[in-house]
């Protein structure tokens, strides 16, 4: 069971330092930990708890509220099929059934080789071209049974590796760039905005 790597731990500490209250960093740290392992390992949860000063139960409780934070291992590719109204009318349930047959798993399960996890998802905002499918939170709208099969083949063969982020990565920015914000810059910006606010307040009071 893996916790955060030394690099990610250092990064997590930087993230915590960005917030006035350490516990505000709880969810960002969950994303970072998930980007590493694809899911929130119990070790990572304990580490996050220590970093932000809450108990492991509180981290787990918070993370469990969100569908996009995983507390169980997920496959390399997390395939989500939208089943909300537009996609449903466009055949989402049929596609989901097909996906289950194609991957040999039920919705919510992971293939034995750990490659695919299949999930049902809420609206992915691809309503103009149902059915919308997401792979590791990258969108592939307008899917039918045959395009879905092609998608799965491409994924399995690694042909989409450039397009689809590694599993567990929720943030698109995170995939391409490292953490850009510098603590001193953030603090300077915060100080500037505090100053501006107090000036506005003073001006308002002086006025009336």
């Amino acid at each position, binding site marked *: 069971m893996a916790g955060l790597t030394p690099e990610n731990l250092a990064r997590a500490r930087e993230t915590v330092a960005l917030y006035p209250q350490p516990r505000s960093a709880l969810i960002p740290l969950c994303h970072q930990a998930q980007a590493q392992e694809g899911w929130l390992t*119990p070790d990572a949860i304990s580490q996050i708890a220590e970093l932000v000063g*809450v*108990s492991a*139960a*509180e981290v*787990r*409780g918070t993370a469990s*509220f969100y569908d996009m934070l995983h507390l169980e291992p997920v496959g390399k590719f997390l395939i989500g099929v939208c089943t909300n109204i537009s996609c449903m009318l466009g055949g989402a349930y049929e596609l989901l059934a097909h996906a289950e047959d194609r991957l040999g798993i039920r919705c919510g399960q992971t293939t034995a080789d750990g490659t695919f996890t299949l999930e049902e998802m809420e609206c992915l905002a691809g309503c103009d071209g149902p059915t919308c499918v997401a792979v590791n939170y990258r969108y592939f709208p307008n899917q039918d049974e045959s395009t879905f099969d092609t998608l799965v083949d491409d994924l399995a063969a690694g042909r989409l590796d450039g397009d689809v982020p590694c599993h567990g990565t929720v943030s698109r920015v995170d995939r391409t760039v490292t953490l850009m914000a510098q603590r001193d810059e953030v603090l300077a910006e915060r100080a500037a905005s505090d100053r501006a606010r107090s000036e506005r307040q003073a001006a308002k009071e002086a006025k009336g």
Partner: protein
Amino acid sequence: MPVSVNESGIPSEDTVTITVNGKQIAAAKGEMIISATDRAGVNVPRFCYHPRMKPVGMCRMCLVEVSGPRGMSLQPACYLPVADGMEVVTDSEKVRKAQDGVLEFLLVNHPLDCPVCDKGGECPLQDQTLAYGPGESRFVEEKRHWAKPIELSDLVLLDRERCIQCARCTRFASEIAGDPLIDFFSRGDSTEVAIAPGEKFTSYFSGNTVQICPVGALTATPYRFAARPWDLEQVESTCTSCATGCRVVVQSSSNQVIRYLGVDSDPVNQSWLCDKGRFDFEAHRAGSRVTVPMVREGGELVECTWAEALRKAAEGIGRAMEVASDPSSAVGVIGGARLANEDAYAWAKLVKSVIGTDSVDADLGDGLPADAVLGLPKATIDEVCSAPLVLVMTPDLRELAPILFLRLKAAAQSGRTKVIELTSVGTALGRYATETLVYRPGEAASLVAALFADSDPKPLAAGMEIPPIAGVAASDVARTRALLAGFSSAVAVVGRPSLAESTEATVAAVAALSAARPETRYLTVHRRGNLHGALDAGLAPGILPGRVTLEGGRSTFAAESGWGRVPASTGMSTHEILRSAAQGSLGALILLGADPVVDFPDHESEKALSGGAFVVAVTAHLCESARRADVVLPAAMYAERGGTTTNFEGRVTTLGKKVTPPGQAWEDWAIAAELATALGSDLGFTSFDDIAAERTRLVPLFRHFTPHIWNAPSTRDGVLLPLATAPVGLTGAPRALDPVATPGIGSLPHHAVRPPSPSPLFAGTGTTGPSGAVASPGAVRFSRPASPPDLPAPDAYSLRLVAPYRLYDCGTHVVGSAHLAALAPVGTVRVNHYDLDRLGASTGDTLRAVSPGGSHQVVVEVDDEVQRGTAVMGFNLAVAEGSVSARSLIDLSAPVTDIRLEAHR
């Protein structure tokens, strides 16, 4: 200061008026509607609301109609503060429909397993469904199913199907206990209360979640399937597992104690209990219980009749009295903190008058001297928790007095009280303290002196760095000194921080504080249940009942109308008694519920019982010391006898008697009376009332304190002695009862009846001590030592030993309660990694500890919370095979104990 109080007990300037169901009632500004309606006797159903916790408005059961800018609307009564002129309707058709609907939703997934549920019969969900619910279910679908029950800890089990997600338990854990080890997991209809994998809900307060669960979701392993609520009988009592004096109800079934529940006593425990107090009733039925008198014959303890046991005991004590000129050097008595106040008085009379020895001590070398407990100006828990600044010099209060810890934690978190903690090892309170200064064990006095000095610490010579004081950095001292200087009055909580240092160190610290700030008031904390009551009764050398010295009380007690005689001179303390017994110069030793062989912090304590003294053990359990006694007299335990008890504030509350003592066990006062008869005397006591009557007559402290007073509904939360005036009337408005706050004791007579506060009759904080207004002549006074004890200079190779209490130790109550015994930690020596690295050792290694008590094996553990140069080992814990407990290392005759760890060869 008197505050003008109206009929509802609210200061008038903070009052608003609201209309509830057409009737005008007064409410306090800022309070929630539900507490105003409760006070007015209007019941609003509720689940999540608990009067001792912050509201969350989660369950929606308390919806009422409230007037607003857009007319009447449904609002949660627990979450909306009152406003002047607000109109509230709790019984309209709309409200009833809302209640009906909320209950229907709550019952959607709630199993209908009431007949097999422990909560059935005292269940708020069951009761409120009957009162406000739909009556019939429209739900025909499959309910959700979970594996059940699951273990949250060794004490608490969770049945998730029954949970209604009121968040009482999770809020208690994070808000009140500060142990957020349980939390809601997941969302929507799959929400469950859960722990993190691999963790347990290991909180000293976990049992409270079971107490406040409004359904049968949380159950306690010791009570599971043990009884049905309608079979339970109950009596209100005071917990004596520690000296906090929490109010409880004792519930029994078939003459067996089955359960304790916390009573909402405003000045003390505010409805909470610690797990030790809640679950140690299993010790009543422990295999070690003594139920028949025993005498030693041919080296073995054999059962006998009371008559024979008393005769043998009287013979042994009589022989000891005959050979010595002064009974104080012939007979020693140890213990008494287990007794009720009335028992203690009877024993004091037997010991000091009939036997005539003054060598009696209720303190087993673990508290403060009697003159400090009785003679320092007192502060109550409420006064400590409302003071702007509190100086805490105690062991870890969460281990020693868990509910006092909760009260102080709440005060610190509210921002009302700044806590300054002086300690030698990290404590649970440290998280909430404004300042925590970690000093070298035994050197508190010099730290206190520096904190109250006229100027900041100075360097030895210009340009040099300022040396630390007692191991505390000079800058920390200066900062705290500045903080202290800003407060004119101070309240201090003091206790013996470590059993590996003598009382001298603590007394010196208190003396330094009292010299610098004479107006300081003190809450002296000790562990043993009724130690204060035993001292009040005179079970200590040099004092007589009523907090007076031997000299001060002589005229009263030595008179014919008193006891007839009192000892001529001050006798020995426990330590001296044990030493004298070990040397063979003590003739007889009486153990009053004391187990000095394992429970006295000195490496030589074991020898005391093999020095040839005749030993009588008056005990409920066959403890290690009782096993070596010549006569064992079985005594009744808690809940098997009545009377009163005194907590460390000096607050006197009642003890409830619910079950009969097992076998032939007697109440302690009866044993004293019969033993006096066997010794050819008569104590003159045939009942509790006799004792109370004599005490009221002879002891000014107990004047007016009759059973009539202590059994009155308005003194349920206890009284502080002496009563300021004669009782003029015993009034007290019954507090509106919240049947859902603590399910199971809703029907308790006088439950949560609070005297009008502050009660004019019992105002004040006692009148003893140097600053007491009417301290009687001859009162015990705190005696300041001439100078602090001389400590050995810190030596680079030695570690100064700290032996703190642990809540779960090897005491008879924990060992006798199977569920608690499993939780007791194993005793290891915890040191900083720096000190272990020097020896090339690591956690789990066995090292040789060279101590005043000899060279012994101990298991070590790295703990960087421990300062360098310090070693911490909990007192009276089980240890690994071949190693020794902390007691074997401690030398109580030295001010501190230094040990040296050596690699094993």
